[in-house]
């Protein structure tokens, strides 16, 4: 089973994408999409240095994505407000460092995408020596608050999503 469906989530995603692209639910498109959903992940597997992500808790992932959607809309308004009404030299843009406990490469990728999607924050780098995230914040008011927010609202749910089996299981099974 694992051999032909290395990543069920990816397969389902590809099938849905195919059906949406063709805007059709005809049997032929289910078949073509099914072939794509099986063949593409198998062929692409050697290209994945860390193997496919194993999502332990899909529900937690959905909750995380929903939370970050709300966060994106909220910070959109904050950033717009600053652009419109604040004098440019009054904006306190800063780099901050956030110590991370997250080590899964897929989790880090997800975290960086979520942070960069949210207006007002850009992921700069992961400092390897102490495993710290260097983050650029558009308008910093309280560094402690940012560290707290990233750690509790983003990092913890992501660790939950890719929980323990992802890290050791990856090398052995994949």
């Amino acid at each position, binding site marked *: 089973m694992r051999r032909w469906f290395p990543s069920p989530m990816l397969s389902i995603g590809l099938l849905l*994408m195919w059906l*949406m*692209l063709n*805007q059709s639910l005809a049997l032929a498109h289910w078949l073509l999409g099914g072939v794509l959903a099986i063949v593409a992940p198998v062929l692409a597997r050697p290209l994945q240095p860390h193997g496919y992500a194993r999502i332990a808790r899909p529900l937690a992932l959905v909750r995380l994505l929903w939370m970050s959607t709300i966060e*994106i*809309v909220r910070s*959109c308004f904050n*950033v*717009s407000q600053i*652009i*419109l009404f604040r004098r*440019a*030299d009054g*904006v306190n*843009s*800063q*780099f901050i460092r956030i110590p991370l406990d997250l080590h899964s490469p897929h989790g880090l990728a997800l975290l*960086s*995408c*979520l*942070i*960069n*999607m*949210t*207006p*007002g924050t*850009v*992921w*700069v*780098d992961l*400092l390897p*020596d102490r495993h710290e995230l*260097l983050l*650029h914040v*558009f308008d910093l008011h309280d560094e402690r608050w940012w560290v707290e927010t990233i750690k509790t609202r983003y990092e913890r749910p992501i660790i939950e999503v890719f929980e323990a089996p992802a890290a050791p299981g990856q090398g052995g099974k994949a």
Partner: protein
Amino acid sequence: MNAIDTLPWWAAVTVAFLLVLGGLITLLGTVGLLRLQTFYQRIHGPAITITLGTGCILIASMVYFTVIQSRPVIHEILIGAFVLMTAPVVSMLIMRAAIYRAPRTGDAALTARDTTQTQGLSDDQDR
């Protein structure tokens, strides 16, 4: 355009509102590029265009074509998904390019505070 005449008023209002809102947000993102002083501030401007601006325009498109063709048209979701997947990667690449370049060129657009911070970073990286 005959199709527009057949659009019921509630759909027309929704679509128009979303398009105007999306357009304004996009405009605001570019105003940010113009108004903000340093590179590290300007990188945050287009982020609102990518998220809310694109979102509003895509939802408007979905509503419009769903009503006009009287069947669900939702493949705009794919545009949204792909933009949201690629845009963060691009902004990260641009940011890192700037960071690695900053100490070498001594770019005048960077503030003193920014450069001292990035100096520390590139020292970390060089090891």
